[in-house]
């Protein structure tokens, strides 16, 4: 077997390589910063024959999602990518893809919504698609981006639900770092061609997809979607372990960092967690205080049981949200509170919700250090949003 090669790649191009190695057959996309270079490289790969796929150019993101829905219904492995405004325009068809139970993979590069116009990172765009029936996985590094495209197809094609891989604008999308690119045959062993589609629309095999579902059948469709999501919790866990056995990098529902003995746990998702980890490591070294990190990976399905087990009985939990649900609070904070509700009072840690880094505002080690110091001073939850870094 040929050995893997390491290349210096951007986060976006790592996604492109993940798509190529997954032998995706149909790609359709509409350009939008900061996503564009994902499909730019893919279009080059298709044009020069490196990747045998159809690249369908369309006039909007709504059409891009519609095109990959058609391709996936015809049995193909299909991919698209977008950001913020583009993802919002896809919204109707996101519901459609999940409802039609199509294992499409979408890479969303987190970008803040306008107005005011912004191209910089924020997690609100993907989190706002929470209830569309898509599995969502947040990644921290370029390697994880490449790996999780492959993993996404493995998961999606087992549970017949689409998967969204989420990476942060610029902080990951345009950052270069060394990435291991696996030999094609090694990926082929892990991810064979799409097997056992739920249905295939093709000439001579006529189906009506998306016909009327009256009150007599509709609820069962939704019940089955929920059951598939629940099953996805185990599939993500098992395939993440299988991925580790095969490629040497293991992925779980979440990642713990200095977590085992931690009294204070910082919870975050996405690339800025690297800064959280780095700060926690140094803070521990200097103070000896038991601070740890829990990085969320799966947001849908939300792994309630695993998170309850991981956070049970900790002294304090601080959630770092680079997002907001207006009129409520940080979205990960809100979801995590709901997951921990079932813990008994004496086992449920007090939780503190920080909102920071909106619209790409830099998140620095100093910010993280100040949050750790702030958490230490708090005993009771007095407010559901603690703003970090808002100018007076």
């Amino acid at each position, binding site marked *: 077997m040929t050995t893997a090669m*390491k290349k*210096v790649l951007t986060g976006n191009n790592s996604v492109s390589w993940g798509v190529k190695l997954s032998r995706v057959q149909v790609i359709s996309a509409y350009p939008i910063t900061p996503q564009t270079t994902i499909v730019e490289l893919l279009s080059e790969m298709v044009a020069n024959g490196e990747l045998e796929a159809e690249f369908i150019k369309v006039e909007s993101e709504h059409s891009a999602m519609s095109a990959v829905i058609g391709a996936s219904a015809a049995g193909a492995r299909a991919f698209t990518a977008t950001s913020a405004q583009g993802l919002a325009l896809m919204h109707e068809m996101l519901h459609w893809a999940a409802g039609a139970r199509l294992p499409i993979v979408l890479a969303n590069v987190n970008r803040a919504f306008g107005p005011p116009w912004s191209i910089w990172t924020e997690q609100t765009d993907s989190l706002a698609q929470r209830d569309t029936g898509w599995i969502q996985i947040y990644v921290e590094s370029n390697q994880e981006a490449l790996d999780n495209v492959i993993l996404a197809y493995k998961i999606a094609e087992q549970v017949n639900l689409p998967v969204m891989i989420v990476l942060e604008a610029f902080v990951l999308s345009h950052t270069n770092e060394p990435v291991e690119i696996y030999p094609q045959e090694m990926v082929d062993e892990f991810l064979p061609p799409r097997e056992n589609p739920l249905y295939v629309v093709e000439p001579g095999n006529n189906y009506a997809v998306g016909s009327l579902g009256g009150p007599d059948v509709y609820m069962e469709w939704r019940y089955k979607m929920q059951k598939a999501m629940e099953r996805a919790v185990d599939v993500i866990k098992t395939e993440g372990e299988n991925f580790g056995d095969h490629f040497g990098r293991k992925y779980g529902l979440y990642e713990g960092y200095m977590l085992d003995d931690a009294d204070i746990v910082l919870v975050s998702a996405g690339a800025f967690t690297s*800064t959280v980890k*780095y700060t926690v490591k140094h803070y521990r070294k200097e103070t000896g205080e038991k601070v740890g990190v829990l990085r969320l990976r799966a947001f849908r399905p939300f792994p309630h049981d695993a998170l309850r087990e991981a956070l049970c009985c900790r002294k304090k939990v601080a959630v770092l949200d680079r997002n907001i649900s207006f009129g409520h609070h940080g979205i990960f904070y809100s979801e995590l509170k709901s997951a921990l509700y079932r813990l008994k009072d004496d086992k449920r840690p007090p939780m503190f919700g920080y909102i920071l880094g909106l619209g790409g505002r830099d998140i*620095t080690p100093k910010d993280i250090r100040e949050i750790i110091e702030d958490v230490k001073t708090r005993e009771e939850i007095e407010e559901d949003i603690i703003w970090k870094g808002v100018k007076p």
Partner: protein
Amino acid sequence: MIEIRMHGRGGQGTVVASKALGIAFFLEGRYIQSYPQYGVERRGAPVQAYLRVAEPGEEEFVRSQIYEPDHIIILDPTLLDQINVLEGLKPGGWVVINSPEPPEKLNIPDIYNVATVDASAIAIKYRLGTKAQPIVNTAILGGYAGATKLVSIENIKEAIKQVVPIKPEENAKAAEEAYHSVKIRNASEVKV
């Protein structure tokens, strides 16, 4: 860890330079992270790019911007008069700058090591870009390697060949010439 900030103007190839230097360090066996300023770059406007180089054997970085760099690389000397390019530079750090002047002539505090290289003239000699707008990003990397000796010129040339889309040979030669012609003024004794 070494943190490097590069200053140039949109269109000069500052971002490509940060990637090439990153690859050169990567070829030395170091883990790296390089990225452009998170902005909407326009031709001629000041731009920045960043590079982190891990200590040998280490593979972790923060993902925030660089505020206190160890080294600064300046592709366009006119930036010296326009923005505070030295902002946050650690005492004892390197300033590598595209300039025909000797380092002593540039009014840079003596707590910094300064290296000058006439990257514009070298780029013009190898017909990189135009006479009015030479592409200096590869020559300046040769100057960086010659001054700091932290990365070999062989790996700089190899990295250039990997990332520069046109005239890879000429760009590599420009880096080589800059490597040999860089002028250095060391910092005076500094208390760090």
